[in-house]
C-alpha cells in the first residue's frame, strides 16, 4: 500500500529543517510521497522551489509534490486562477468565510484543519454537501493533536470526530496528514491510521484516507497540469 502525506512544510515555508531532511524521514517512515506546502511569494520563488523539489525527489527517491496554501479568500481566488502552475491547492481552514469559499471552489484540493482555533468544528452539513459536490477533501491534521494538550486537545478531538461524522454521511473525501513543520513531527502512517480509527473512521476507511484518496488527488492534479487538459471532464484528444 502506498502512503502519502499531503501537508508538510520546510524551511522555505515556516518550518526549520530542509526539504531534504523531511524527504529522508518520510522515506524512512515508508511514505511513497509527500506534498511540500508553501505560501505564494511570487512566481520566481515558486520556480526555485520546484527545481529544488525535483532535485531532492531524484536524490532521495520519493515522490514530492508542490502545494500552495491560501490564507484568505483573495489569495484563494488568485491561486485558483494560477491552478496549472503547481500540483495541489490547499486552504488554511479555521475562518468560516474561508471554509465556505474553499468548499465552493472546485479548484481546491484540500481544506486543511477546518476546526483550527475555533470553539466549534468549523464544518457543517451545508459545507459538507458543497465539499462533496466540488470534490474538496477535508483534512485531519495530526499536528493539531500532537501540539495541543489537556482541554484544547480534547476540544480538537471532539471537533474532528464531528467532522468525520459529517464527512462520512455526505461522502466527503477525508485525507489524513501529519501537517509537520519539522521532520520530527512526521508520524508513521500506522500511527495516523490508528488515531483516525479513534476518531470514528473504520480501519479500512482510515487506510484509504492516507493512501487511495491522496493518490486520487495526485492523479487529478497531474491531469490538471497536462497540456491537453481544459477543465474537469474536458480535454483535447486530437
Amino acid at each position, binding site marked *: 500500500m502506498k502512503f502519502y502525506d499531503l501537508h508538510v512544510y520546510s524551511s522555505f515555508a515556516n518550518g526549520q529543517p530542509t526539504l531534504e531532511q523531511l524527504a529522508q*524521514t518520510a522515506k*524512512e*517512515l515508508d511514505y511513497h510521497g509527500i506534498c511540500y506546502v508553501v505560501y505564494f511569494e511570487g512566481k520566481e520563488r515558486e520556480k526555485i522551489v520546484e527545481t529544488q523539489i525535483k532535485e531532492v525527489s531524484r536524490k532521495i527517491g520519493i515522490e514530492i509534490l508542490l502545494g500552495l496554501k491560501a490564507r484568505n479568500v483573495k489569495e484563494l481566488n488568485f491561486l485558483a486562477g494560477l491552478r496549472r502552475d503547481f500540483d495541489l491547492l490547499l486552504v488554511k481552514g479555521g475562518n468560516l468565510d474561508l471554509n465556505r469559499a474553499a468548499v465552493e471552489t472546485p479548484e481546491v484540493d484540500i481544506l486543511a484543519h477546518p476546526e483550527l482555533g475555533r470553539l466549534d468544528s468549523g464544518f457543517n452539513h451545508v459545507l459538507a454537501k458543497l465539499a462533496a459536490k466540488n470534490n474538496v477533501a477535508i483534512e485531519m491534521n*495530526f499536528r493539531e*493533536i*500532537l501540539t495541543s*494538550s*489537556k482541554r484544547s486537545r480534547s476540544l480538537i478531538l471532539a471537533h474532528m470526530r464531528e467532522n468525520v461524522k459529517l464527512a462520512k454521511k455526505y461522502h466527503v473525501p477525508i485525507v489524513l496528514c501529519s501537517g509537520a513543520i*519539522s521532520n*520530527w*513531527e*512526521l*508520524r*508513521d502512517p*500506522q*500511527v*495516523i491510521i*490508528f*488515531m483516525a*480509527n*479513534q476518531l470514528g473512521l473504520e*480501519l479500512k476507511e482510515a487506510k484509504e484516507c492516507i493512501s487511495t484518496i491522496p493518490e486520487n488527488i495526485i492523479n487529478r492534479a497531474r491531469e490538471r497540469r497536462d497540456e491537453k487538459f481544459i477543465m474537469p471532464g474536458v480535454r483535447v484528444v486530437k
Partner: protein
Amino acid sequence: MRQVKKLKIVLSTLREKERYVKFKIISQEPIIYSDLEDAILNTFLDFYGEQGFSSLSFWIMKDLYDEENQTLVVRCNHKSVSQVIAGLGLISRLGDSRVIFKILKVSGSIKGLKPA
C-alpha cells in the same frame, strides 16, 4: 523455607488475548530507557486517563528492549492495539531529544516478532 502460593492458571478460553507491538524509536540522540518508560506511561495516563489506561492491559517488556537498535516491545490486549499505537504517536520528546516512533510489527506472540 516459606513457599509462595501461586494462583492456578486461568483457562485459556478465559484468558485475555494478548498482542505484542514492536516499534523502533528514531531519535536525535541516543535515548535512556528510564526516559522512554516515563514518557510512555505519562503520555498514556494523560491521554486515556486512569480508567482508560487500565482497560488497555498495557505492559512494557523491559527485557526485550534493544539498546543498540532502539527497539522496544509493549504488550496490550487484542482490543486495544489501535489505542496503543495511536498513543505512541503522541510522544514527541524523550528528555531533550525529539523522537519518532516507527511501528515494526504487531504479533500475538513474542516468537512472532522475531525476524524470519
